[in-house]
């Protein structure tokens, strides 16, 4: 009985400790959630569809890619493939965090993987690296506020986006390329970043001119990834890891 009370209050404080750590992520992602909602409506989504996309996919960059291609009337299966490609990095997070949460019940693990975003992985991995246990309550406290705010703010952005009269003067149509460039620049410390970006940029422009949209996305991405695979491993900086 006494141990039950102790472990329950421990779980509760773990949860709130996670919530505290989630606050910077909530604040930083808020503008992008609103932006996503507004741009989704601008690209032909309804408010409900923007809400559902945030609630079910829950991956900022991939949602932006999805609505951008949707606005360009790209074939549905290619939109899904592009969402998959942008989110493919999660495979690495999943492999990493799997070791930390293997002691959870399966249902909790299944939910844990659903909210495994970039910051969720970074913060959870940092906790594990410092020698602390990654418990379900703590992990949920970290992830749940980010999820709830992301979904609500997306819907608000979608409602608000319908009220914007002149989207060209406000630059709404070109905000996505700026956002994507920002994301590309954010990866610049990775090994092989410059050659990959140059290869993908050249291949996608050539493909855009010759084969046409939307194939420039797949062709450009494959060119960059192939280059990274072909270049000798000592350039890619991965061979030194244990």
């Amino acid at each position, binding site marked *: 009985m006494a141990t039950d009370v102790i472990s329950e209050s421990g779980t509760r404080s773990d949860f709130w400790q996670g919530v505290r750590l989630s606050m910077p992520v909530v604040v930083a992602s808020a503008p992008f959630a609103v932006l996503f909602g507004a741009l989704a409506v601008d690209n032909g989504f309804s408010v409900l*569809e923007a809400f*559902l*996309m945030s609630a*079910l996919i829950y991956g900022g*960059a*991939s949602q932006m*890619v*999805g609505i*951008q291609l*949707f606005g360009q009337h790209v074939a*549905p*299966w290619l939109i*899904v493939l*592009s*969402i998959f*490609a*942008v989110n493919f*990095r999660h*495979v*690495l997070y*999943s*492999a990493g*965090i*799997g070791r930390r949460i293997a002691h959870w019940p399966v249902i909790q693990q299944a939910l844990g*993987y659903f909210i*495994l975003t970039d910051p969720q992985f970074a913060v959870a991995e940092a906790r594990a690296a410092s020698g602390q246990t990654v418990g379900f309550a703590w992990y949920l406290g970290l992830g749940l506020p980010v999820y709830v705010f992301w979904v609500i703010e997306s819907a608000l952005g979608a409602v608000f986006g319908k009220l914007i009269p002149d989207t060209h*003067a406000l630059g709404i149509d*070109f*905000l996505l390329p*700026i*956002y*994507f460039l*920002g994301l*590309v*620049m*954010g*990866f*610049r410390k990775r*090994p*092989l*970043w410059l050659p*990959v970006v140059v*290869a*993908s940029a050249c291949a*996608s*422009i050539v493909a*855009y001119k010759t084969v046409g*949209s939307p194939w*420039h*996305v797949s062709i*450009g*991405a*494959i060119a*960059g*990834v192939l280059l*990274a*695979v072909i270049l000798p*491993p000592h350039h*890619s900086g*991965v061979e030194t890891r244990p």
Partner: protein
Amino acid sequence: MSTTLWIIIAGAVATYLTRIGGHLVISRFENVHPRVEAGLNAVPAAVLTTLVAPELLNAGPAEWAALVVTALVSLRGGLMSMFLAGAAVLILARQFVG
């Protein structure tokens, strides 16, 4: 159901597969080949680049200015500051060159 809804559901399934797939597949292997890891590392930058590069073909002075400022600010600031700087330049420049 509408096409949009199918895209969202299929996109959600594909995304969930990436989030659980690494645990189910990659963790079974003792080592990931360095070339495979280098390829996986390159995926996000490669995909996102293809969404920016072709836009340069249709871009006017306002769009170019916005992208250059975004890239410059990125050397110092975070994602939010570079996005806001690029957007501000774009909106301002469009008032003059349309």
